[in-house]
């Protein structure tokens, strides 16, 4: 499953969230990640995210897609970070 994750956290928690997301997905922009995840990986990620979040104040939004091929990604301006396997 291809996932785009965006979050909005209180200042105290935003760093923790960033570090957590980095372990699972590719960073593309501030507070935005994307990547191919399995059901289990996503559940792990959300489980840990909930522990970091303050669910009264913070938000985390997921856009899920069956496969990358159904996703049309368009970049306007600078690509902050590419997500390919070649570096």
């Amino acid at each position, binding site marked *: 499953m291809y996932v785009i994750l965006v979050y909005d956290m209180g200042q105290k928690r935003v760093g923790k969230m960033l*570090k957590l997301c*980095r*372990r*699972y*997905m*590719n*960073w593309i922009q501030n507070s935005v990640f994307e*990547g*191919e*995840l*399995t059901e289990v*990986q996503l559940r792990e990620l959300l489980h840990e995210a909930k522990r970091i979040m303050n669910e009264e104040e913070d938000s985390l939004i997921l856009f899920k897609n069956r496969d990358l091929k159904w996703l049309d990604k368009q970049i306007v301006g600078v690509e902050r*970070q590419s997500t390919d*396997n*070649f*570096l």
Partner: protein
Amino acid sequence: MKQPKYLFNAGRMSRKDNTLKFTPVDEAGVEEQPRYLPIEQVGDLYVFGSLDANSALYNFLGQEGIAVHFFNYYEHYTGSFMPREYLLAGKMQVDQTKHYMTAKKRIEIARRFVEGAANNILRVLKYYNNRDKVKDLTEAIVSIERLLVSVPTTTDVPMLMGIEGNIRQTYYGCFDAIVGQTFCMDGRSKRPPQNELNALISFGNMLCYTACLSTIYHTQLNPTISFLHEPGARRYSLALDLSEVFKPILVDRLIFRMINKRQLQPSDFRSEVGGCVLKDAARKRFVQGFDEQLKETIKHRALGRSVSYRHLMKLECYKLQKHLLGVEEYRPFKAWW
């Protein structure tokens, strides 16, 4: 889905916040913007550039079961960092060794590897034989088929290796007909490869070999005990056996395609002392092509679903395991398209 990562730029890899941080360094030694690789998505690391790393990183990679493959300046495979075995299976090991020790059992498996390889070679040749631009390959096809018929009658491994060698020689003889306009084969040369086409074959075979090695690592098989090749010291010879089957389909077809589509030109190579190697940009393109090839899926007949070429390698290991445990006889993968 775990994906291999290919490192072409020089830089520093480090462990940061329980994931990987790669800081590329440009030619002047200035650090560029770091990139974080999600640890959960990293399959293997292929290091083509120069990489700075410390033992903390390798401890972390070992813990996560990630192998690192190193290639030197001349694009030779220099070695791998393999994490501790994590799928240990005593019974499997004993059975694998037994099959190697018993000459009759060993030759049986070895024959299958050659059969698989030859069939895939024939598939490639037959495909190109139908092309208008390619010269007639029927003669080579017939002689390979004839050699293939004699495989089941072989009684020892050196004899089998001889036949395998003849098949390959005939096969490499056809390369000129397929890509003859821009490149010239001029016989197979290794260590070091003497011309462009040979450099491509060597480089591609090496990629295939490391892909097989990683696959074997994720199964219970022992990568050092092989059947067709002689298990030697300091090498993973089972990966050599396995890659025989996949080389024609994965590597050679990729080479033909890239050359015929002019994605590789003679200017993409440079001559080194006594050999020939790919230039950096072309090497990257080729590895990219290989990676795409591995991700390519086909509809598997027996399983009834789409599987990638990389997964086919794994299925091949499973079939071999079943054979060794006496569950089901091993039948090599034969391309049918």
